[in-house]
Protein backbone atom coordinates (compact mmCIF):
# COMPACT_ATOMS: atom_id res chain seq x y z
CA UNK A 1 0.00 0.00 0.00
CA UNK A 2 1.39 3.36 -1.02
CA UNK A 3 1.73 6.27 1.35
CA UNK A 4 -0.34 9.38 0.55
CA UNK A 5 1.60 12.35 -0.82
CA UNK A 6 2.49 14.90 1.82
CA UNK A 7 3.00 18.55 1.01
CA UNK A 8 6.54 19.90 0.98
CA UNK A 9 6.81 22.90 3.26
CA UNK A 10 8.12 26.05 1.68
CA UNK A 11 11.52 27.26 2.90
CA UNK A 12 9.93 30.72 3.12
CA UNK A 13 7.48 29.37 5.70
CA UNK A 14 10.36 29.52 8.17
CA UNK A 15 10.48 33.31 7.83
CA UNK A 16 6.73 33.44 8.47
CA UNK A 17 7.21 31.49 11.69
CA UNK A 18 9.88 34.00 12.74
CA UNK A 19 7.54 36.89 12.04
CA UNK A 20 9.55 38.13 9.06
CA UNK A 21 7.60 38.98 5.92
CA UNK A 22 8.68 38.03 2.40
CA UNK A 23 8.93 41.73 1.60
CA UNK A 24 11.50 42.25 4.35
CA UNK A 25 13.54 39.27 3.16
CA UNK A 26 13.45 40.61 -0.39
CA UNK A 27 14.54 44.06 0.78
CA UNK A 28 17.54 42.68 2.67
CA UNK A 29 18.44 40.47 -0.29
CA UNK A 30 18.20 43.45 -2.62
CA UNK A 31 20.44 45.59 -0.38
CA UNK A 32 23.08 42.85 -0.13
CA UNK A 33 23.17 42.29 -3.90
CA UNK A 34 23.09 46.04 -4.61
CA UNK A 35 26.05 46.60 -2.27
CA UNK A 36 28.00 43.77 -3.92
CA UNK A 37 27.11 45.16 -7.36
CA UNK A 38 28.18 48.70 -6.43
CA UNK A 39 31.57 47.53 -5.13
CA UNK A 40 32.13 45.27 -8.13
CA UNK A 41 31.16 48.06 -10.52
CA UNK A 42 33.61 50.50 -8.93
CA UNK A 43 36.43 47.97 -9.16
CA UNK A 44 35.71 46.90 -12.71
CA UNK A 45 35.37 50.48 -13.99
CA UNK A 46 38.65 51.35 -12.31
CA UNK A 47 40.32 48.51 -14.22
CA UNK A 48 38.77 49.53 -17.52
CA UNK A 49 39.75 53.17 -17.13
CA UNK A 50 43.28 52.37 -16.00
CA UNK A 51 44.15 49.43 -18.24
CA UNK A 52 42.09 49.67 -21.41
CA UNK A 53 44.85 51.61 -23.20
CA UNK A 54 42.57 54.34 -24.50
CA UNK A 55 40.56 51.75 -26.38
CA UNK A 56 37.43 52.94 -28.12
CA UNK A 57 35.70 49.88 -26.66
CA UNK A 58 36.08 51.00 -23.03
CA UNK A 59 33.44 53.70 -22.67
CA UNK A 60 30.70 51.96 -24.74
CA UNK A 61 31.33 48.74 -22.80
CA UNK A 62 31.04 50.49 -19.45
CA UNK A 63 27.94 52.39 -20.62
CA UNK A 64 26.27 49.19 -21.85
CA UNK A 65 27.06 47.45 -18.58
CA UNK A 66 25.59 50.29 -16.54
CA UNK A 67 22.45 50.56 -18.69
CA UNK A 68 21.86 46.80 -18.51
CA UNK A 69 22.44 46.83 -14.76
CA UNK A 70 19.98 49.69 -14.31
CA UNK A 71 17.30 47.75 -16.20
CA UNK A 72 17.65 44.77 -13.84
CA UNK A 73 17.84 46.98 -10.76
CA UNK A 74 14.64 48.75 -11.80
CA UNK A 75 13.00 45.37 -12.36
CA UNK A 76 13.96 44.32 -8.85
CA UNK A 77 12.89 47.65 -7.39
CA UNK A 78 9.48 47.34 -9.07
CA UNK A 79 8.87 44.34 -6.83
CA UNK A 80 9.83 46.27 -3.72
CA UNK A 81 7.68 49.30 -4.46
Amino acid sequence: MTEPLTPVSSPFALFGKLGISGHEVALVLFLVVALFWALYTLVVIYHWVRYSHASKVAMPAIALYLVGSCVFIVLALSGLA
Partner: protein
Amino acid sequence: MEFKREFELEPGEIVLREVRKHWIFFALSLVPLVVLAIVPFLIPPFIAHVPQLVLLNHFEGWNTALGRVALGLWWLLLWSSGFNAFTRYFLNAWIITNQRIVDIEQRGFFRREVSSLLLNRVQDVTIDTEGLLHSLLDIGDINVQTAGSVDRFTMDNVGDPPMLRDLILENAAAHTGMGNSGV
Protein backbone atom coordinates in the same frame (compact mmCIF):
# COMPACT_ATOMS: atom_id res chain seq x y z
CA MET B 1 39.76 61.39 -19.61
CA GLU B 2 43.41 60.42 -19.46
CA PHE B 3 44.29 56.76 -19.76
CA LYS B 4 47.56 55.54 -18.34
CA ARG B 5 49.67 53.11 -20.32
CA GLU B 6 51.37 50.30 -18.45
CA PHE B 7 54.43 50.65 -20.63
CA GLU B 8 56.04 53.52 -22.43
CA LEU B 9 56.78 53.30 -26.11
CA GLU B 10 60.44 53.86 -26.97
CA PRO B 11 61.40 56.52 -29.53
CA GLY B 12 60.53 55.15 -32.96
CA GLU B 13 58.44 52.33 -31.51
CA ILE B 14 54.96 51.88 -32.95
CA VAL B 15 52.18 49.50 -32.02
CA LEU B 16 51.55 47.13 -34.91
CA ARG B 17 48.81 44.98 -33.47
CA GLU B 18 46.84 44.33 -30.30
CA VAL B 19 46.05 40.63 -30.09
CA ARG B 20 43.53 38.85 -27.91
CA LYS B 21 42.17 35.36 -27.71
CA HIS B 22 39.70 34.55 -30.48
CA TRP B 23 36.26 36.01 -29.70
CA ILE B 24 34.70 32.54 -29.87
CA PHE B 25 36.19 31.75 -26.45
CA PHE B 26 34.51 34.79 -24.96
CA ALA B 27 31.23 33.79 -26.63
CA LEU B 28 31.52 30.24 -25.27
CA SER B 29 32.08 31.60 -21.77
CA LEU B 30 28.67 33.30 -22.02
CA VAL B 31 26.77 30.09 -22.82
CA PRO B 32 26.46 28.92 -19.17
CA LEU B 33 25.25 32.38 -18.17
CA VAL B 34 22.56 32.38 -20.89
CA VAL B 35 21.41 28.95 -19.72
CA LEU B 36 21.28 30.17 -16.11
CA ALA B 37 19.31 33.23 -17.24
CA ILE B 38 16.49 31.10 -18.64
CA VAL B 39 16.48 28.62 -15.75
CA PRO B 40 13.83 30.63 -13.81
CA PHE B 41 11.37 30.06 -16.66
CA LEU B 42 12.01 26.32 -16.50
CA ILE B 43 11.06 26.15 -12.83
CA PRO B 44 7.21 26.38 -13.21
CA PRO B 45 7.02 23.52 -15.78
CA PHE B 46 9.37 21.50 -13.57
CA ILE B 47 7.16 22.03 -10.53
CA ALA B 48 4.11 21.06 -12.58
CA HIS B 49 5.69 17.71 -13.46
CA VAL B 50 6.81 16.71 -9.97
CA PRO B 51 3.84 15.61 -7.83
CA GLN B 52 5.54 16.40 -4.54
CA LEU B 53 6.27 19.94 -5.68
CA VAL B 54 2.76 20.45 -7.10
CA LEU B 55 1.53 20.11 -3.55
CA LEU B 56 3.89 22.89 -2.55
CA ASN B 57 1.61 25.22 -4.50
CA HIS B 58 3.32 28.38 -3.27
CA PHE B 59 4.92 29.51 -6.51
CA GLU B 60 2.78 32.15 -8.18
CA GLY B 61 4.97 32.95 -11.17
CA TRP B 62 7.59 35.61 -11.76
CA ASN B 63 5.17 38.48 -12.35
CA THR B 64 4.61 38.99 -8.65
CA ALA B 65 6.37 41.49 -6.40
CA LEU B 66 8.80 38.95 -4.93
CA GLY B 67 9.19 37.23 -8.28
CA ARG B 68 10.34 40.46 -9.92
CA VAL B 69 12.83 41.11 -7.11
CA ALA B 70 14.27 37.61 -7.42
CA LEU B 71 14.38 37.73 -11.23
CA GLY B 72 15.90 41.22 -11.30
CA LEU B 73 18.64 40.32 -8.83
CA TRP B 74 19.36 36.99 -10.54
CA TRP B 75 19.76 38.64 -13.93
CA LEU B 76 21.82 41.46 -12.38
CA LEU B 77 24.29 38.89 -11.02
CA LEU B 78 24.45 37.07 -14.36
CA TRP B 79 24.84 40.35 -16.27
CA SER B 80 27.74 41.32 -13.98
CA SER B 81 29.29 37.89 -14.52
CA GLY B 82 29.04 38.37 -18.28
CA PHE B 83 30.71 41.76 -18.04
CA ASN B 84 33.37 40.21 -15.86
CA ALA B 85 34.03 37.64 -18.60
CA PHE B 86 34.30 40.41 -21.19
CA THR B 87 36.65 42.38 -18.93
CA ARG B 88 38.95 39.40 -18.55
CA TYR B 89 38.78 38.75 -22.30
CA PHE B 90 39.57 42.34 -23.21
CA LEU B 91 42.20 43.22 -20.63
CA ASN B 92 44.29 40.14 -21.41
CA ALA B 93 46.24 41.10 -24.50
CA TRP B 94 49.45 40.81 -26.41
CA ILE B 95 50.70 44.01 -27.96
CA ILE B 96 53.06 43.59 -30.88
CA THR B 97 55.21 46.61 -31.64
CA ASN B 98 58.01 46.96 -34.16
CA GLN B 99 60.49 46.39 -31.30
CA ARG B 100 58.91 43.94 -28.86
CA ILE B 101 55.94 41.88 -27.77
CA VAL B 102 54.21 42.96 -24.57
CA ASP B 103 52.23 40.30 -22.72
CA ILE B 104 49.55 41.76 -20.47
CA GLU B 105 47.91 39.21 -18.23
CA GLN B 106 44.99 40.10 -16.00
CA ARG B 107 45.03 37.30 -13.43
CA GLY B 108 42.29 38.85 -11.33
CA PHE B 109 41.28 42.21 -9.98
CA PHE B 110 44.34 44.08 -8.70
CA ARG B 111 46.56 41.27 -9.98
CA ARG B 112 48.14 42.00 -13.31
CA GLU B 113 51.37 40.97 -14.98
CA VAL B 114 53.06 42.86 -17.79
CA SER B 115 56.12 41.36 -19.45
CA SER B 116 58.04 42.31 -22.57
CA LEU B 117 60.03 40.34 -25.07
CA LEU B 118 62.42 42.22 -27.33
CA LEU B 119 62.17 41.10 -30.94
CA ASN B 120 65.96 41.09 -31.31
CA ARG B 121 65.96 38.06 -28.95
CA VAL B 122 63.53 36.06 -31.05
CA GLN B 123 65.04 32.89 -32.47
CA ASP B 124 62.03 30.94 -33.63
CA VAL B 125 58.29 31.32 -33.93
CA THR B 126 56.05 28.27 -34.17
CA ILE B 127 52.32 27.79 -34.57
CA ASP B 128 50.34 25.04 -32.89
CA THR B 129 46.81 24.38 -34.17
CA GLU B 130 44.98 21.43 -32.68
CA GLY B 131 41.34 20.42 -32.76
CA LEU B 132 38.34 20.77 -35.05
CA LEU B 133 37.18 24.16 -33.76
CA HIS B 134 40.69 25.58 -33.98
CA SER B 135 41.17 24.31 -37.52
CA LEU B 136 37.79 25.53 -38.75
CA LEU B 137 38.18 29.01 -37.28
CA ASP B 138 41.90 29.33 -37.93
CA ILE B 139 42.82 29.54 -34.25
CA GLY B 140 46.16 28.52 -32.84
CA ASP B 141 48.89 29.04 -30.27
CA ILE B 142 51.98 31.00 -31.18
CA ASN B 143 55.17 30.02 -29.39
CA VAL B 144 58.05 32.46 -29.52
CA GLN B 145 61.42 30.96 -28.66
CA THR B 146 63.99 33.42 -27.39
CA ALA B 147 67.75 33.32 -27.26
CA GLY B 148 69.22 32.33 -23.93
CA SER B 149 65.89 31.69 -22.31
CA VAL B 150 64.31 28.43 -21.29
CA ASP B 151 60.86 29.94 -21.14
CA ARG B 152 58.74 30.25 -24.20
CA PHE B 153 56.56 33.24 -24.86
CA THR B 154 53.15 31.86 -25.78
CA MET B 155 50.10 33.56 -27.24
CA ASP B 156 47.34 30.99 -26.93
CA ASN B 157 44.12 30.64 -28.90
CA VAL B 158 44.66 33.63 -31.15
CA GLY B 159 43.05 34.08 -34.55
CA ASP B 160 45.01 33.97 -37.81
CA PRO B 161 48.28 32.77 -36.27
CA PRO B 162 50.18 32.61 -39.61
CA MET B 163 49.68 36.35 -40.13
CA LEU B 164 50.90 37.07 -36.60
CA ARG B 165 53.87 34.76 -36.99
CA ASP B 166 54.85 36.55 -40.19
CA LEU B 167 54.40 39.94 -38.52
CA ILE B 168 56.68 38.93 -35.63
CA LEU B 169 59.29 37.38 -37.90
CA GLU B 170 59.37 40.32 -40.29
CA ASN B 171 60.01 42.74 -37.45
CA ALA B 172 62.44 40.39 -35.71
CA ALA B 173 64.36 40.09 -38.97
CA ALA B 174 64.64 43.87 -39.13
CA HIS B 175 66.45 43.75 -35.77
CA THR B 176 68.51 40.58 -36.09
CA GLY B 177 68.86 39.90 -39.79
CA MET B 178 66.94 36.65 -39.26
CA GLY B 179 65.11 35.36 -42.31
CA ASN B 180 61.49 34.35 -42.41
CA SER B 181 62.14 30.78 -41.41
CA GLY B 182 59.36 30.14 -38.94
CA VAL B 183 57.29 27.00 -39.27
